[in-house]
């Protein structure tokens, strides 16, 4: 188990699949763990990577992303969702992701996860799209 993330200001990046966006708005399901995710919502840490680098790594590993939204550790925490670091080692097919972390929905039933995902989505939308709205040349954390 990774260390808990304690800096409430740290922004965690969430990649959004293109099919989960309509008219520029992501679905709330993009902000809750998928069935196979063991109640853990994958994110990348702004303390370790930038949105551009996170996007490049994610899509370079063969996943689709149309936008990155950001939610802070404190914002997850306000909804009873702790966050932990979870760096991923390289595999035969995937490049290592030392910035990987997860927001844990453990202990929350499927019903609660659904309504919380809607709250998290609102927070993320209020912050706005972090990438690719940013220019490709801007390589700092951008947050």
């Amino acid at each position, binding site marked *: 188990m990774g260390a808990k993330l304690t800096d409430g200001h740290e922004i965690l990046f969430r990649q959004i*699949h293109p*099919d*989960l966006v*309509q*008219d520029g*708005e992501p*679905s*709330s*399901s993009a902000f809750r763990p*998928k*069935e*196979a995710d063991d109640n853990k919502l994958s994110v990348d840490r702004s303390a370790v990577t930038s949105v551009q680098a996170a996007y490049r790594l994610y899509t370079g590993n*063969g*996943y*689709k992303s149309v936008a990155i939204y950001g939610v802070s550790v404190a914002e997850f925490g306000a909804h009873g969702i702790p966050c932990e670091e979870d760096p991923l080692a390289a595999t035969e097919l995937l490049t290592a992701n030392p910035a990987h972390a997860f927001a844990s929905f453990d202990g929350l039933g*499927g*019903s609660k996860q*659904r*309504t919380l995902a*809607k*709250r998290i989505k*609102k927070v993320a939308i209020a912050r706005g799209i972090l990438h690719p709205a940013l220019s490709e040349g801007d390589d700092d954390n951008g947050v």
Partner: protein
Amino acid sequence: MAEDKTFKLRYVGERYSGARLPVNMLSDLPAFRDLLVSFAKDQWKARHPDRQRVPKGFDASLTLDLTTIEPGSALPNLVWSREVAQASLPGFEDELAEIVEASYSDIIGLFEGVAAGQDTPDLSPDKLRALDKFGAGLRADEKIELTSVTGGNVVFLDVERRKRLIISGRDTYSIRVTGIGTLASNSMYGHVIIRTERGDISIPVDPQEIIDDFDGSLDQSVQYDVLVEVDHGEHIRKVLDVFDVGVVDASIEAGMLRSQERFAEISRLQEGWLDGIGAAIDDAALQSAQKFVHARIVHAASMKIYPNEGAGVLIELEASGWDMSLEFAANGSVQMYGIEVDGDDELEPQAFAYVGEQLLAAFDAKVRR
């Protein structure tokens, strides 16, 4: 001594739950009474072969009163009053009680016959007229159950049986149809033609209403709710009554088209669409979601439609201060939940077996139409 007689019609279908009887079904009650009276006349004549006609006051003695609607779907109780019969046809109340009961049994027998696929007996014009009104508003998944006087058999009338009964004695029958079509033409002389899946329907409309509401709206979507006469082949012969007809708001139409395009888009998703996981969207989920959009078309423009990883569909929308989600599963069932946009209130997920009155009522309770 004979007592009052109570006949219970049990309306089965989701919109009748909780002892609710939609007001547009109330016209069934006088139609049922007319059917009962018609059989009662036959009974009287059979008992009095020497008489050509029923006595004065016979019709009035067969009044039915709606006294209550019991739960168990909706069970309107229709009561034949011995006291009223006594006042209308003094001295015959005992015989009338027997006649009313026997007539009700005749109706049960008629419905049992059609249920068993038997040839329908020749029905008099007044019976066909009553049958043509009774159950005209039934939908495809609904029925009216009648229980025999002895409390044994339950027999029901549904759309199909009703049709078979009526067309056995005439070329056409009446049904209520609702939907959305396209305005093909309008005439200052008092009718509009709506192009629908059933063919063109010519609907009478007041000329002034045509000028005010339909002029300049050719090819636009029109919502209709009409009682029509159809033939054996389901072709509409004429419109008998108009409950609603109007051009659909352009923004609603745009929302409808947008949702159709989006449904087409997600129906094309292949297995593994979600980075290797995510099943292709199931037809039952799509149909269920489309049915919901159609049922709440006024909100279509603000609905966002997404695929769900488990072959389902997710619809989300903000309205009336609520951010609502409806998940349509691969088996067509629905889960609805939501959060208050500017508050902490939440609607915990509620499950519905299908898109029907219960779901729509729960949705309407949060989101005003």
